[in-house]
């Protein structure tokens, strides 16, 4: 069964590489690519996507996950810190919602201010990330210190309002 599968895979792969241009190098490491899909992700994943229709979605998910992970690994560390902060804020908001579902929403203004403060800082952190990201063409004139100062100011206003509304 597996042997048939391998045979089929070899034939499909040959067709695939007659269409694609970068065939010379790839043919040499044919088996290598087939076994280790990490060498050239895109070609292998494409190949697997075309070939394996039976186990496609699971493999797709795995391949997608791997490509996402590798693409994300290349982001600079300051952006990763901001992403961590965003994740933490959203997680806190979720905890509050679960708590409200268990305990009831009696001081509704407290619940609202708590959740909205978490969501608010998450949103503002995402805005900061957008402005600080060096790959973003629109904000290349904006010094990151100015972006951070705006972030702090907006957070200040947000938390002032939260304190007032918390009751």
């Amino acid at each position, binding site marked *: 069964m597996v042997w048939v599968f391998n045979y089929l895979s070899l034939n499909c792969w040959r067709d695939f590489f007659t269409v694609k241009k970068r065939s010379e190098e790839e043919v040499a490491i044919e088996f290598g690519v087939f076994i280790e899909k990490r060498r050239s992700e*895109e070609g292998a*994943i*494409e190949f697997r*996507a075309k070939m394996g229709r039976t186990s496609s*979605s699971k493999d*797709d*998910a795995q*391949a*997608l996950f791997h*490509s*996402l992970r590798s*693409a*994300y690994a290349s*982001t600079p560390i300051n952006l990763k810190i901001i992403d961590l902060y965003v994740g933490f804020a959203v997680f806190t908001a979720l905890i509050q919602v679960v708590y409200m579902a268990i305990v009831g929403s009696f001081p*509704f*203004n407290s619940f*609202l*201010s708590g959740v*909205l403060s978490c*969501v*608010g800082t998450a*949103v*503002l952190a*995402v*805005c*900061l990330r*957008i*402005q600080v990201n060096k*790959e*973003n063409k*629109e*904000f290349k004139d*904006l010094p990151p210190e100015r*972006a951070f100062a*705006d*972030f702090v*100011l*907006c957070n200040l*206003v*947000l938390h002032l*309002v*939260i304190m*007032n*509304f918390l009751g």
Partner: protein
Amino acid sequence: MTAPETSITTVPRLYTNKTLRNAFGGVLSFFILLLIGVLAFSIRLFSVIKYESVIHEFDPYFNYRVTQFLTKKGIYEFWNWFDDRTWYPLGRVIGGTVYPGLTLTAGTLWWLLNSLNIPLSVETVCVFTAPIFSAFASWATYLLTKEVKGAGAGLTAAALLAMVPSYISRSVAGSYDNEAVAIFALIFTFYLYIKTLNTGSLFYATLNSIAYFYMVCSWGGYTFIINLIPMHVLLCIVTGRYSSRLYIVYAPLVVLGTLLAALVPVVGFNAVMTSEHFASFLVFIIVHVVAFVYYIKGILSPKMFKVAVTLVVSVGLAVCCAVIAVLIALVASSPTKGWSGRSLSLLDPTYASKYIPIIASVSEHQPPTWPSYFMDINVLAFLVPAGIIACFLPLSDASSFVVLYIATSVYFSGVMVRLMLVLAPAACITSGIALSQAFDVFTRSIKFQLPGLSSNAEVHAGETSSATAEAQNDAVNTGKSEETLKDRSSRKSKKKEREHVEKPSTKAKVEKKRLLALPLEASVISLLLLVLLGAFYVVHCVWAAAEAYSAPSIVLTSHSHDGLHVFDDFREAYAWLRHNTDVDDKVASWWDYGYQTTAMANRTVIVDNNTWNNTHIATVGTAMSSPEKAAWEIFHSLDVKYVLVVFGGLVGYPSDDINKFLWMVRIGGGVFPHIKEPDYLRDGQYRIDSQATPTMLNCLMYKLSYYRFVETDGKGFDRVRQTEIGKKYFKLTHFEEVFTTHHWMVRIYKLKPSKNRIRGKTKKSKSKTSSTSSPKRNGRKKKNPWH
């Protein structure tokens, strides 16, 4: 640091020329703006000049009373104020049901002026708040239009808004109502929104949220903003104009804006629970989804992205459907689908007339007629389509917002005449853009066809070609080059320079521009016609401000062959009440006069203009529609001592209580079924002449209006209804007349107290029942022993 010597001689001259022109343009536009502010302020002063510095209409009196309270007692008392002098047995929580923006603004202004030792009274500050804020509104319009199209359009739009009659009608000196500050807040919020959209700066996003907070404090129309902005964001996403600036402008606004809106006591938790706000949350989620999708697209390769899309779509669609189904079930379970009555009547214009007669009865809530469009926005009505087209060339985020704003405001102004006010700024912005573009084309054509000027153009082209390399980057990247153009003349030359940037050779440019220019005569005549159009607009606006919208409805005038007659009956009546009754006496009247009675006469009223309790109003309406005895009982149960009735039959004042009577019957009949409207109608009409129904001739309103009316001219001819009255000679049994004003416009009656002894019943029966419970006897006494 030090500039190279070779260019020292050339660069400064260029630098000076351009900066000199810019500086001159800047100073000129500053003075123009100052003049526009003065114009906006002074065109609203007609009522102060023609009558006096008095507060107009009905609603402003309530705001004035609240401001008086605020200045006397301070802000803590104001927030916690429970008013027991209105809605008599119920009272009203002022702190929680009033939009505090206007009163806090005027109170702050008064406090500031008094602390600077300028002793203006509260009334003066209240009267002049509206003109001051209309000057601010025109400056905000300048800023907004400058962000959309440039400074020339900004100045034109500001000049148009300073004079547009629709805005004047709600912001004359003396019209101390919410819209006076709310329109300024509206335009300023939109300006900050566009500014944030153009620059992507989080600082302006914060300012935007704070301006939105000021708008929520000021007016119930803030729901327009919180629905228009999500619509615009959705429009940008759908037309493929998504950018990260869109996320920065929208997401913080929703979070901060919802929090700030929930801070205002009037709105409270409605900010998260009513359907008016759901659109903003929905678009909030959509914007996050779109932002995430763009982010993933950016970090993945195209093939992987396709895979991701197929995966996510199949899984996500199921989850989405489930969530939306739950949400729809939640919303549909409430009878009004979560919308408040007033908002629902905007979306479905027939809703109010079917379910809420009070909303339908207000004249401001009726749809406008076609002539009112021409009266209120005059020339702008046909400049607006030209402006919409100008917004499309080129289409930017800001100009798409303007197009959306004008489209929605035209729809809403068609539903309710009061909302013509929201149409006014949109019309001014688009017309300003149109006029400015037209002027630009014509003056440019003229400039290039006059021989002296065109050679100048070539020289300028040669000089500035070296500096264009720098300018090119700026012009291409942002629209900020337009921001440096302060004046139309400098804009002409700068536009010419920018065109030179695009095409390197000067000769080709000049030739090409000759092709684009219109013939000289045509442009001169067109310029003159445009100026004439502006002149017509100005003349109409000044006429409307002076004649149509400056009437303080508390004082009426009429011109006759004898000269000017002044009818000051309302204030006469309120002054009489103030001086001749006890402080705790309750006065009953139709709800129109409630605010004025509490503010000027300082007496407790039963119902007032807030109309929050339909049943209470229906009680008063029933009393006015019932015969004397039943009405006496109703009023006695409410502790009423005086009844106030407005009657216009002697002088021909058409807005009197007999004309409003049909609403009393309808509203009363809506709650108390024994009042049936057909009882008062003869052939489907309300009549008060000899053909009137007996129910009509016996009801309290008829009797109180026409008591002794026949003594005025012997025949009882009602000038408003243009007939003689039906029942001319009658006596009042349960009421006595205590005051009628000079022109019989306001008539005040006192409830006759119940008699001590019951005539006709024997004492024996009374003593027999004396051993029975006393409440029963008291009940009989209260039951009005007449007849």
